[in-house]
């Protein structure tokens, strides 16, 4: 890669950092009461007079931070997954990671909500996301795992797990139903500092880990044969990369529910901007993902005041048309 290209990549990443920052501040200032962005900045820098302590510190900041973290995690999870299975149409929500998490979350809502504090729900979701991905992986194993089997079996398992979710919802009473549906659609409603502090470690540990593995990832994209020729232990690397992807997607879904299409679209937008896999791509994807979720949540909670609509509706609304375009563009790829 020439230094010219590298310079361009750096500029793109800087530009998106600014965009993310802009959305961050805009999200903090918008809501049922508008706070001017200047005041928000003063407040964040500790120069305010404490007037916005409640609105910003308690209500908006944790929610916007969580949106940022969730978006970054989903974007990178999708990027890794698409590299591992070498298919630009794969995403955590399509090959079963998200549905795995849904099973845990709904089981929790139906059976444990009365007796166990709600804050444990993410762990239930994360647990089942891990288990179900492991099952998908094992079922796809036949002297090694091929990307194609992984996708097909993932889709099959996703359908089965969706049936479990539907069963649990239909058989439970109305209160549980609406709560479960809200979660399934993906919402950042009611995000608090505890969520943020629980979500942060996942992002802080696994995105750098993804950066560490970025070279392996770009070699894997060349195909199993080529990767083996270059001395990569294909099966082991595939398993590790998949594990990173599940950790990121699973934690994001656990805290924000089924926010769809971010894991699918964010990597594409970044690739379009700076080309093939490298460290910059991972950084850019996390910024794009974070911006997408922040924007979706901003629209979701302000456009129809006083209604607070699940952000997942808007990520689907933005993501789906783009996805159809992608399908059309990639029609010649396997």
């Amino acid at each position: 890669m020439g230094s010219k290209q590298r310079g361009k990549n750096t500029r793109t990443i800087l530009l998106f950092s600014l965009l993310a920052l802009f959305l961050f501040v805009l999200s903090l200032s918008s809501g049922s009461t508008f706070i001017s962005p200047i005041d928000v900045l003063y407040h964040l820098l500790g120069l305010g007079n404490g007037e916005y302590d409640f609105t910003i510190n308690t209500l908006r900041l944790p929610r916007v931070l969580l949106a940022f973290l969730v978006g970054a995690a989903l974007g990178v999870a999708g990027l890794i997954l698409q590299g591992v299975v070498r298919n630009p149409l794969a995403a955590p929500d399509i090959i079963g990671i998200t549905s795995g998490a849904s099973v845990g979350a709904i089981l929790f809502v139906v059976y444990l909500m009365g007796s166990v504090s709600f804050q444990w729900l993410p762990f239930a979701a994360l647990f089942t996301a891990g288990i179900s991905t492991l099952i998908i992986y094992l079922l796809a194993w036949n002297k090694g795992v091929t990307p194609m089997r992984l996708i097909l079996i993932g889709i099959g398992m996703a359908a089965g797990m969706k049936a479990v979710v539907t069963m649990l919802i239909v058989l439970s009473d109305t209160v549980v139903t609406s709560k479960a549906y809200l979660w399934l659609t993906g919402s950042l409603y009611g995000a608090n500092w505890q969520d943020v502090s629980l979500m942060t470690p996942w992002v802080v540990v696994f995105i750098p880990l993804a950066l560490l593995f970025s070279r392996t990832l770009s070699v894997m994209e060349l195909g199993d044969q080529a990767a083996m020729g270059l001395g990569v232990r294909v099966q082991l690397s595939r398993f590790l990369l998949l594990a990173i992807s599940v950790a990121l997607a699973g934690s994001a879904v656990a805290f924000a529910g089924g926010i769809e299409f971010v894991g699918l679209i964010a990597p594409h937008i970044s690739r379009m901007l700076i080309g093939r896999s490298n460290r910059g791509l991972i950084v850019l994807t996390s910024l794009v993902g974070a911006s997408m979720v922040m924007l979706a949540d901003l629209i979701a909670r302000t456009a129809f005041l006083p209604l607070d609509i699940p952000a997942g509706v808007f990520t689907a609304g933005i993501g789906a048309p783009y996805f159809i375009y992608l399908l059309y563009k990639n029609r010649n790829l396997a």
Partner: protein
Amino acid sequence: MGVPMDTVWSKIKIIGFSLCLFFFFIAFGLSVSLGQNPIPFQTTLDAFFHYDESITEHVIVKTSRFTRAVIATVVGSSLAIAGALMQALTRNPLAAPDILGINAGALCFIVVSATFFSVDSLSHYMWIAFIGAGVAGVMVYFLSAFGHGGLSPIKIVLAGAAISALFVSITQGLLVIDEQQMQTVLFWLAGSVAGRSMEMIQPVIPFIASATVLAFLFGKPINILLFGDEVAKGLGQRTILLKITIGVFVIFLAGGSVAIAGSIGFIGLIVPNLVRGLVGTDYRWVIPFSAVIGATLLLLADVAARFIIMPQEMPIGVMTAFIGTPVFIYIARKGLSKNG
């Protein structure tokens, strides 16, 4: 050398078909007589031939059980035929109305129309379901069909999964916003053959019936189509016209099923695969066998759904998914280990 092999095969197939029909009637009988109040077979027959309003069992049979069994039959056979047609159309054993997003499309259109246009009669739902099924089907087909590789299994399944995801997230979003609507649409989401009257399903029947009969008659052209577009064209077949016609059948069958019973998955996937394992790839046989076995399977699934978590009933779409997921995974593993 005595009787040619072909004739022997045909005879075996006819016997097999009769056997399947026999099992179908047993399943139908079980569906009418079993449930929370088991009804003896004799009483069931009496309900038809010596109907007596004062006997509770007769009323149950007439008003709920019989209709329910008829609906399961219609939906089961429609979905199985739709699956068989789609698998022929795409030359892909994993194609089915639910996997390719046809069911999700029909359902999404129903929820949208119920939310925004307060549509609530079944004959309207039916047309809306046809449109939704058509839109989803056309999307999947065009997105996956035009490429150098033709229809690779992986591509079409991915396209279907993604289009399903799109429709499902729209549906879920609407349901979250409109909680009251959710309760009325929920059984559609899960799929159900219960709680409908004969009058309600009447508008859909002509479409399903004509598509079914015509599909039976299309066995031979489909066999030719399976040789590949080039060969079929060489034999004078107007392949594009044929494909569009088959597509319309699929929309009537799958869309009609969704309008009647909501989203019931996997029947369209499992049954045609099973049938091809039994009788081979001759579509003159595959379609009738699929129809009968599909109906039988859905009847049995419906009977089982009444008992598993008594006194509640399991949604039938959930039942079929539990049966279907392992089969899907089996096909995915087996089908792909052949070609790497």
